[in-house]
């Protein structure tokens, strides 16, 4: 999971939010996005503001509904520093050759 996509950031709620609070905030945000509220269009992360979409909100709620996934998300959200220097976006998967070097089957 990428830090900037942490569901607690997407929904702008505290990591100890109750289940009801999560649902309530998500429903509010979806409504605001649907009607084009300026305030709902971005959310704050330690890596700077990110655009918020209805898909991201729905995905965030789905993650937080699953107890195990929520635990992982909480862990990341709690340990996140308040700001980070912009780290390079590393997303590429290494080639099969490297995987072999690292000792995995291709």
């Amino acid at each position: 999971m990428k830090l900037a996509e942490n569901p607690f950031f997407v929904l702008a709620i505290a990591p100890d939010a109750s289940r009801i609070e999560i649902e309530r905030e998500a429903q509010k945000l979806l409504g605001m996005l649907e009607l084009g509220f300026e305030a709902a269009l971005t959310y704050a992360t330690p890596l700077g503001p990110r655009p918020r979409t209805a898909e991201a909100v729905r995905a965030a709620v789905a993650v937080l509904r699953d107890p195990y996934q929520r635990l992982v998300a909480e862990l990341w959200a709690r340990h996140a520093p308040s700001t980070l220097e912009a780290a390079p976006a590393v997303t590429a998967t290494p080639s099969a050759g490297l995987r072999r070097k690292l000792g995995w089957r291709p």
Partner: protein
Amino acid sequence: MAETPLYVGIDLGTTNSAAAVFDGERVSVVRNAQGATVTPSVVRIDKQGRVTVGTRARRFLEQDPSNTAGEFKRLMGTDKAIEFPAAGAKKKPEELSAEVLKALRQDITDQLGVTIDRAVISVPALFELPQSSATSEAARLAGFSRVELLQEPIASALAAGWRADEDATGTWLVFDLGGGTFDASLLETRDGLLRVVGHDGDNFLGGRDFDWAITEHLASLLPVVPSRSNVHHTAALRALRLAAEDAKIELSRGERAQVALAQPLVIDGQDVEVDLELTRATVERLCAPLVDRALEVCTRLLASNGLAPGRLARIVLVGGPTVMPFVRQRVAARLEAPLAEGHDPMTLVAQGAALYAATAGIDGRAVSAAPPSGRQVWLQYPAVSSDLTPHVVGKFVGPNDSGAPAKIKLVRSDGGWSSGEASVAPDGTFLTSVTLLPRRACTFQIEATGADGKRIEVSPPALTIVQGLTIGDPPLSRTLGVALASGHVQVYLERGAPLPARRTFTHHTVETVAKGSKDSVLRIPIVQGEMSAAHLCRLVGTLDIGGDAVKDTLPTGSPVEVTIELDRGGRLSARALVPTIEQVFEHVAHLLVPDAAPEALDSALRDLRRQLMDLRTDAFRHGLTQVIEKLDRIESRLSEAERDIDAAHGGDADAAQRARRALLDVDGTMAEADLARKWPELDAAARQAAITASSTVGFHGTDAERTLLQEVLAAMDKARKDKDGPELERQMRLAHRLSSAAFNRTPEAWEWYFDDAASEISRSRDLPKAQTLVKQGKAAVERGDTEELRRVVKALWQLLPDDSEARKRGFDSGVR
């Protein structure tokens, strides 16, 4: 909005269909003209072309079978047309389903006096995309302007959970044995939210198989035994089957039943009198293996969610066959959990669909064309909310002639509550919340006032929210992705992803698409399934970029941005954007469920048998008991498939589809068995992976990564202990991802990638270009320019080929 809402749910079943309506407080089942709550899904077209649906049509199944059709739901999504020779008509399965929907729609009008236009229709959880889109098409043909599809188990759980007490928290199992499909779903209710934890099922197990088991037993008692593979015996078998069905229902109450036909059957030119006796014990003996097959699915589902039997709070039984006492006893005993009482297993799904229509805010009535009076406001609020204090978000739009509203207040119509005044922002937006009454539908009047304190009329003048169980967004039942030229699948949407969902990835073309050339087509295959190898997934559609459509020639390696989108009901749309020529391709060729020709099935069966033999010899040689057990199960599935293929030769299209599915499943299981055979190799790889990941993450990882790796390592240990190959592979991928993330952060990572890619350039598609890139890369290494090096490596990866064998397995994918 002033009148009570009307939400409509329809259960379009294999053997029976039903409709229900929900008014915000009560759910009622719609009765048909005969006064029954269920309508048989049977359609008859007579000589004059008149269409009869339901009980009246079902009577003709025996008398006039060639002009009467049932069980067409199982053919949905295929292009198999059903013939009605008397009228000279040919109908597709969705057209017949449309007739059933029309009949139900008429029943609702007769009973409630309103024409409905929108509804929620339930579909089996394991329906594939072509089957779902055929269902939407049926609804369109029946005159619905908008429908949403809902998975049946969610519908049943919603209906069962709605009436349960508020403290009914815990895990539920919905055991839905329908006419043609079996679904098992695990659900959890907590804090008023219903969540699907997981589901499993058998798309081809149902009450129908019970009937066939009894029919075959009865047939074996006759002096001349009719066979399912003989086309001339079809009529006799059908008559026998209808008698078997009646006897089965009779035996739900009595101990024995008489199976006697008024007219003798004609088999091979001989008259055969049928006068047999059937006892409950016989039926139980015949059907027990089928129930056990369903129970096996349940135990598998419980195990995969780490739940021991006996930990279930309740089991909800759905579907006609679950009325049989021995089925109820067997299920309760085996799963060691109480059955939920007081639900009608025949209409529960329709009731749930109606409740769901409320949660999705789909009012059944046609939208009135009355012009709005007053200031128009767009509102966003949950139509059903488990939360007692949900938010209401709104925005004033339209002409501003009666002055801008400055304050807004919501007043509950029972007069017991009103919101404080919320202020409206200059752009017309406002945000407030309301307080609901438990388990009730609450209507709130919207009172807007201008800056001068004068009332402003608004449209709509009120809104209604029902307090009840909310349901999470429907989860995607099968992983969806794009097959790549390497034969692997790029996953777009994981199984369980909340719908609606949309995802975009950038791919690169593997060959040139020449402008104007009809023959050069770039294919983007869309597949569904849980396997990472494309050929083990189902191809559900293709997006083609043809040479005759492109504005300009697309060289190899051109980027293509593919977006896949699914709506709440699981309807698929896909789009490919080619940025270099600024063109969008969005015509998805939806595939039908492939036709299952008996000859093709024969040869597939032969292939699988041969593979099975190889695997078995190998397993015996190495004494792998676990693998042998797995192979035995495959063997019995193959024998079953063989029987179905026999019936397919006799012209039974449904049995053919079923055999096709079974063979596909066996293919997947075989791959797993193969994995088990390669266990030692996999085990060693896993150990190696654990060591490498520990050191990479240990040196370069963050704290959080280290914590996560600990969890992954624990999961790997567990998978190794359980000898669970697929799970181990999954965990290895996670470990690998963590260590790559850590590794990519190191300065030497990209140098390493570069060396690796550079060593393979002799295989590249464009050698001069690759050589230039290598030169640039070397310079970047010397300068220590990581940014540039990364660019070079990525460009090099684009030039390295995929092998053609792999590409074939990837459904001739033209992207990587």
